[in-house]
């Protein structure tokens, strides 16, 4: 009925059976509305032309049929319908017959039941009678036996009591026997068994008895205590004794604390002496530790509940060990020593760990080891820092130890910076490579510390450098003594080179080393050691120090120059008779600088190329110089001035202020350039008469030769010297240069004089 107009045979058949079942059940159902619910529900959706629905309208159906179908269809439909109706009729008949049969057989059954029930009542009454009689018999037996049973029970109780009394009277004897045979366990069991009675009647009836057994028990307690304290007894026995004592309500806790104290006391003798560990022989300490472990084991067995206290003691031991280790670590030890100490403590903690389960001693050890190793790494770095600064500060005390040159200072400090750093890493590597399993868990933190340590180390080193260079800053050069100022300049120079060395050599090498041996370990925030940042820092510091060195040096020269130009009245200068002393001072100062620079800075590898490049321009300079010397009258001097101006215009502008490099040549050149430029500026501030101008000309001319030996870029130097002369020409009221023979003569005289001085002084 749920199905709609079927389009196949199988669903049709199904429909049929279903419809039948529904109809039948609706027929038998007590509440037809309930069952008819589903058909109505479905009929709601069905249309009047649905033959299965309750709202079927034959007329309507007919209309649709007639309208929708042709004759053939109608005929077919008619035949189908007739067949279906016939089928339904047969089904209906079958049902009626079946029901009727069932009804007849039911009536038969009811008839038979009626006849059977009639004989049952009599049998039931007979059964009841029998049961009543059985009950009365049993009651009578029960009452007749009751008295005897009571009596027996009473007798039994008395017997028990008597047995107990007997036991108590026997107790002292029995205890005595037990003491003799050392069967303390039995004795304690007996005594505790008797305890309730003694408690109840101990003061009256069993007075004597109780006293005697108490005495016996006292002896037992004493014996048990002895046993407990004697180390020679087997542990099992001692444990038993402790248990028995506890059963006797003896204050065992006191005993425990006493024993613990003894244990702790024994620990005091086990001091870690790191210095002795190097002597590989099994020390007394090891034996002591073994004993201690034994004792702990015993104790644990004896007092099973004492674990926490024991763990505390064991931890205390390890903690103390580490306190000593940490002190030891700060005294410049090597990694092997540290490892030795750690190994000893590790073994110790392993031993104790075996005895004390769940004691987490290894964790405790790890913590301690962590702190110790960290301290080790830190102190190693700080030692290195200290060494380097010591080494550098020696420069300032140079006058005390004459021999300590800048070169050795630089050597020593670079070695320290590189070798020291690498050694440190190697040392830590040793720790890392140790396969005894001690530091397995520490590996990553160690790597982290090393990285962090390196970062901090270099940072602090740079700070230290800065503070060194800042120490005598500002006006110090005038305040301090001459030697000290010079030493300070040296220090700054060494700092500059050292910074460059660290940036260019030490950091990459150390980083390499790091990559090799400390590469393991994924970093959460990236590695703590950032070589790029440190390099950058040192590079800028190196540049700064170099600049500072140059500043200090040029300032000194500038002071010389200032004195030179402030003193004489240039307008009333006398004819030049010799090269001025100032030139000597200037050259001397330069010599000191060259000396310092040679000791510290590397040579420029590209020197060759550069001198080639400059040769062309220097030629043109010498050409100009010749002209400068050979013109003599005023008119010509003036036109020559114009010429130099023109030359200047067309000549490639000499780069006076180039970037300073960390090479001997560059630094010396920079200082010379700056000094000559200053000279030019000083000259420009003055006004000269002819003689003054000639003096300047002479001095500059003389300077050419010695300067040429010092500087790398002769062209620039020549240019600057020319500039000084040009400046003097411009500032001269009557610029007539010296005749070149006189110039030569004066220069030769000066050279001879200085040569003489040199030979006499040497």
């Amino acid at each position: 009925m749920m199905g709609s107009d079927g389009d196949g045979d199988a669903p049709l058949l199904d429909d049929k059976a279903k419809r039948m079942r529904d109809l039948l059940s609706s027929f038998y159902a007590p509440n037809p509305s309930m069952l008819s619910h589903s058909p109505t529900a479905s009929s709601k959706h069905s249309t009047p032309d649905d033959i299965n629905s309750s709202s079927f309208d034959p007329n309507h159906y007919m209309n649709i049929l007639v309208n929708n179908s042709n004759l053939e269809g109608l005929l077919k439909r008619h035949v189908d319908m007739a067949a279906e109706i016939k089928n339904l009729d047969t089904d209906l008949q079958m049902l009626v017959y079946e029901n009727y049969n069932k009804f007849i057989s039911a009536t038969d059954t009811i008839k038979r039941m009626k006849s059977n029930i009639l004989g049952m009542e009599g049998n039931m009454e007979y059964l009841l009678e029998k049961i009543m009689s059985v009950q009365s018999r049993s009651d009578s037996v029960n009452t007749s036996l009751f008295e005897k049973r009571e009596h027996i029970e009473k007798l039994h109780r008395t017997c028990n009591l008597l047995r107990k009394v007997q036991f108590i009277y026997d107790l002292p004897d029995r205890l005595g026997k037990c003491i003799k045979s050392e069967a303390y366990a039995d004795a304690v069991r007996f005594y505790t068994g008797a305890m309730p009675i003694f408690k109840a009647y101990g003061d009256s009836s069993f007075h004597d008895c109780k006293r005697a057994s108490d005495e016996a028990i006292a002896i037992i307690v004493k014996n048990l205590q002895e046993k407990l304290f004697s180390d020679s007894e087997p542990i099992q026995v001692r444990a038993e004794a402790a248990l028995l004592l506890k059963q006797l309500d003896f204050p065992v806790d006191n005993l425990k604390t006493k024993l613990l104290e003894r244990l702790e006391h024994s620990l005091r003798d086990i001091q870690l002496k790191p210095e002795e560990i190097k002597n590989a022989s099994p020390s007394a300490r090891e034996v002591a530790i073994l004993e201690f472990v034994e004792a702990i084991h015993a104790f644990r067995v004896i007092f099973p509940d004492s674990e926490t206290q024991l763990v505390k003691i064991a931890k205390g031991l390890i903690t103390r060990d580490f306190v000593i280790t940490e002190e030891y670590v700060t005294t410049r030890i090597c990694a092997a020593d540290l490892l030795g100490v750690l190994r000893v403590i590790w073994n110790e903690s392993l031993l104790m760990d075996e005895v004390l389960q769940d004691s987490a001693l290894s964790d405790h050890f790890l913590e301690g080891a962590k702190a110790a190793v960290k301290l080790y790494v830190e102190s190693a770095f700080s030692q290195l820092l200290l060494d380097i600064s010591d080494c550098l500060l020696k420069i300032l005390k140079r006058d005390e130890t004459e021999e300590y040159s800048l070169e050795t200072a630089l050597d020593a400090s670079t070695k320290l910076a590189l070798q020291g750093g690498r050694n440190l890493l190697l040392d830590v590597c040793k720790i890392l490579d140790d396969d005894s399993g001690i530091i397995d868990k520490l590996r990553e933190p160690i790597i982290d510390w090393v990285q962090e340590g390196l970062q901090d180390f270099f940072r602090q080193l740079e700070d230290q450098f800065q503070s060194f260079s800042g120490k005598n800053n500002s006006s110090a050069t005038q305040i301090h003594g001459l030697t000290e100022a010079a030493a300070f300049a040296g220090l700054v120079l060494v700092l500059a080179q050292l910074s460059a060395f660290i940036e260019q050599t030490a950091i990459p090498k150390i980083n390499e080393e790091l990559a090799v041996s400390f590469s393991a370990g994924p970093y959460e925030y990236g590695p703590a050691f950032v070589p790029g940042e440190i390099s950058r820092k040192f590079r800028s510091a190196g540049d700064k120090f170099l600049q500072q060195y140059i500043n200090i040096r040029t300032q000194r020269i500038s002071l010389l120059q200032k004195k030179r130009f402030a003193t004489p009245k240039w307008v009333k200068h006398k004819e030049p008779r010799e090269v001025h002393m100032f030139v000597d001072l200037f050259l001397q100062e330069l010599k000191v600088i060259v000396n310092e620079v040679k000791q510290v800075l590397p040579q420029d590898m590209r020197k060759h190329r550069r001198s080639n490049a400059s040769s062309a321009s220097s030629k043109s300079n010498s050409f100009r110089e010749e002209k400068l010397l050979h013109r003599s009258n005023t008119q010509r001097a003036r036109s020559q001035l114009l010429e130099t101006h023109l030359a200047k215009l067309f000549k490639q502008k000499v780069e006076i202020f180039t970037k300073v490099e960390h090479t001997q040549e560059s630094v010396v050149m920079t200082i010379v350039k700056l000094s000559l430029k200053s000279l030019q500026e000083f000259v420009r501030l003055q006004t000269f008469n002819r003689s003054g101008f000639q003096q300047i000309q002479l001095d500059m001319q003389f300077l050419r030769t010695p300067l040429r030996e010092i500087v790398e870029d002769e062209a620039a130097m020549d240019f600057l010297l020319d500039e000084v002369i040009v400046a003097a020409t411009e500032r001269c009221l009557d610029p007539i240069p010296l005749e070149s023979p006189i110039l030569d003569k004066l220069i030769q005289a000066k050279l001879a004089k200085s040569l003489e001085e040199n030979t006499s002084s040497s």
Partner: protein
Amino acid sequence: MQGASSGIGYGLKYQARCISDVKADTDHTTFLAGTLSLKEENEVHLIRLSSSGTELFCEGLFSHPNEIWDLVSCPFDQRIFSTVYSNGETYGAAIWQIPELYGELNSPQLEKITSLDGHAGKIKCILWWPSGRHDKLISIDEENLYLWSLDASKKTAQIQSQDSAGMPHKISGGAWDPHDVNSVAATFESSLQLWDVRAMGKTISIECSHVRSVDYHPKRKHVLVTAEHESGIHIWDLRKPKVPIQELPGHTHWTWIVKCNPEYDGVILSAGTDSTVNLWLVSLGNDDVSTESQTESPTHWVDPLINTYSDYEDSIYGLTWSSREPWIFASLSYDGRVVVESVKPFISKK
């Protein structure tokens, strides 16, 4: 850093050291420059920036009897200026007036109002009263300070008071405090000395070496800037004379002159013998300058050097801001080239 050459050039005939902004000329941006030639006829050039700002032209050319070591335009009269000059041996100082109708004359002569006689040593500079019309002038030579009272109409100048430095080192220059007209700063070899003009007595002294130039901050009281030969530029707070509140690296060679911008706070110009002009921007914090602001984390440190003008052939001794158009400055290199540049592109960024 190297800015493209955007400057407007103007050539003096001879070498020169000094250029001055004509403050009193409010209609044009004008500068006065004096040449320094020992043997030739020296000139004073009145240079004007065209209104389009693209050209410098000579507004007036006057011959000056001696080489000029210092030249300052009068702050209240655009026709008056002072010079310090030398004939090679002796120094002199004078107040000059540009003649009226000078454009019509063939070779206009400067009218000398008066000369400031009485100096014995090398005269270093003349300072005009810093604000407004006033008759006071100060002239400084190597050893002495003179306070003058100028009467332009009567063409006389009289010494009001005088004080000698009394120091082993010689005075190299000076500046008049625009915030406190009673205070004048003079630079020495190893210190900066302040004078009280009323009593003509020394007050504060600041230790710093080789000071070459000093300039007061035009907006902030107590702040002044010094340029030193070797150690660059220092900014001082006069209330804390022990340590400079800021240091700038200065120039590769001597830092010769330093000038604070009259309008923009913290914009400083310096010129040096390395033939460059550097433009600095420093943050001076709030007015109550504390040392803490100096010790701020160095990560926030920015390079105070905003630009380097390096299109010069020789040392630069003359440098001045234009007070009319404060983003414009004029520089004068020793070879007599005046270059006017605008710092607008750098300031507007800030």
